[in-house]
């Protein structure tokens, strides 16, 4: 499924870039229980317990940053596995310098496979979309200067 | 090959298991089961009543249908602990005193079964159907058994079997099975 969106914050682009570039910081935008840490300069891993209502599971996450052109663009790939399923995301996040801060635009594909895709897609597709939106919204709030 | 023997935990945490009292085919039973034990597993594995079958795992095929207090339920969508205090009747309980239930007779006479796998569940549904509606139309029968899938018969002879049983039960003196 395709996800896409954007926001604008009154923070400097380098700051915004740094926020997104640090998995630990970015992880603070997740509302679901999680534990995420960097394993090297471009990789991170951890766990995330997520779902919709009572359909919840713990996913093992592995992610990486790639094709970085700081502070313009980065590609974040994420592989999650849990509940007999795989959730694979590849997002391109772009940062545009504006007169009053930074415009953030994200676009990418999220693929679900296994049980979730075959049994639960009807139920989780909307959730995934919402969670991605919520993540970026949380980032926006945190990045907005007080 | 990795064979790591692990001891089975003998003491389950509280509320993960329960002692239940169930009357199965007229026989009172007291059993200790895990809360998650499905009724179908209880019948098949604990009581060795293997006439009730598992077909689809998700409540669509009805092969596991048994009567709980006279009502057909899918025993793979029902916990054994939920049957505590109930009367459960499975296919093994249809024949009484060496006499086949009219539904069993009907299935045999009208060739209402082929591989026999869906048959116990189908017959349990039929028994309840006829108890509620002793003289069903073909449409009522077809709707009544629509929670039970049969892959072999195309349902034609199952309908006939139930009609045959209905006729026999109507002719039989009251107080039969």
């Amino acid at each position, binding site marked *: 499924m395709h996800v896409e969106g954007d926001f604008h914050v009154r923070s400097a682009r380098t700051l915004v870039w740094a926020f997104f570039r640090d998995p630990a910081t970015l992880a603070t935008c997740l509302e679901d229980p999680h534990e995420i840490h960097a394993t090297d300069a471009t990789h991170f891993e951890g766990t995330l317990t997520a779902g*919709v*209502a*009572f*359909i*919840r*599971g713990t996913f093992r996450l592995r992610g990486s940053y790639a094709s970085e052109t700081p502070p313009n663009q980065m590609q974040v790939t994420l592989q999650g596995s849990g*509940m*007999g399923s795989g959730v694979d995301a590849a997002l391109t996040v772009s940062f545009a310098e504006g007169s009053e801060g930074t415009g953030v635009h994200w676009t990418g594909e999220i693929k679900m496979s296994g*049980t*979730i895709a075959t*049994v*639960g*897609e*009807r*139920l989780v*597709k*909307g*959730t995934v979309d*919402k969670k991605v939106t919520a993540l970026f919204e949380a980032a926006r709030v945190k990045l907005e200067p007080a | 090959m990795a064979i790591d023997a692990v001891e089975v935990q003998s003491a389950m*945490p*509280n*509320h*993960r298991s*329960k002692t239940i009292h169930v009357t199965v085919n007229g026989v009172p039973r007291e059993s200790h089961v*895990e*809360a*998650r034990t*499905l009724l179908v*597993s209880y019948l098949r594995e604990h009581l060795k009543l293997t006439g009730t079958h598992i077909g689809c*795992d*998700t*409540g*669509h095929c*009805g092969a596991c*249908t048994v009567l709980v207090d006279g*009502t*057909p*339920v*899918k025993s*793979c*969508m*029902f*916990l054994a*602990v*939920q049957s505590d205090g109930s009367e459960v009747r499975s296919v093994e309980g249809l024949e009484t005193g060496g006499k086949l239930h009219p539904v069993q007779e009907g299935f045999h006479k009208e060739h209402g079964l082929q591989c026999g796998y869906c048959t116990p569940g189908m017959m349990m*549904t039929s028994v309840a159907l006829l108890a509620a509606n002793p003289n069903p139309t073909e449409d009522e029968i077809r*709707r*009544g*058994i*629509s*929670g*039970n899938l049969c892959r072999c018969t195309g349902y034609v002879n199952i309908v006939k079997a139930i009609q045959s049983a209905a006729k026999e039960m109507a002719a039989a003196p009251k107080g039969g099975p």
Partner: protein
Amino acid sequence: MYPPNFEYYVPSTVEEAVGLLDQHQGDAKILAGGQSLIAMMKLRLAQPAILVDINRIPNLAYVREDDKFLRIGATTRTAELSRSTIVQARYPILSDAGREIADPIVRNRGTVGGNVSHGDPGNDLPACLLAMGAEFEIHGPKGIRTLPARGFYQDTFVTSVATNEMMTEIRVPRPGAGTGSAYSKMERKVGDFATVGVGARVVVDSSGKILNAGIGLTNVGPTAIYATAASDFLAGKTDSDAVLAQAAVLARDASAPSPDNRGPVDFKKDMVRIWTRRTLRKALDRAKGGK
């Protein structure tokens, strides 16, 4: 396919059940009919640590009518609903739906409360209750509250019932004179979730004018949908095929189906239109004394 372990509690009162839910916030799940939950547990999509089996709470399974409401206890089986003579006589929308939910054996276990509070957009009763302007009685640790069906469904599996609350009664306002209701379900086969389901309620006066109407939609959006514009549009109109067709278009526009094996979005939306028109016609016929 076997469910994971859980702790199992069998409360004998609503208060006890709510206490357990409150104590284990989020980890506990109510087991009513279990016809959706146990399947999800076997697929390991749901892994609640605690199950609170409400089936043994006395006086929670009933269908009765007083001067204001049809009152349905939460653990009433859906099979009972369609068998109830009161329901058949005066709330045919519910007996229609009661004959279409899943299959006859599942209906012996599945409960009205479960069907209504599960929050699955594919469940058939929510659309009916939206159409009928029903309300729900909900018990929580702080007492009882009553919520209207409209606004109750927030998202797929997300309703206004909190994790420490439990629905205890479904109340359908007593229909006045000139009321007719119906539910139609388009399904691929018995046991399927609806391609589309439509619940309709209409009230007509002696001249055949529609006084007010309610239309609920099943499985054409993230939740059951109340087709507000279509329902409002009908108020004050005189029954005609053209009026129903216009209402049907408004209902179609209120739907937001996802594509799946049942068909793509444009097909499903058109089916909302067709079945809304047909269901309205059936409800109107009933309002005018037909069957």
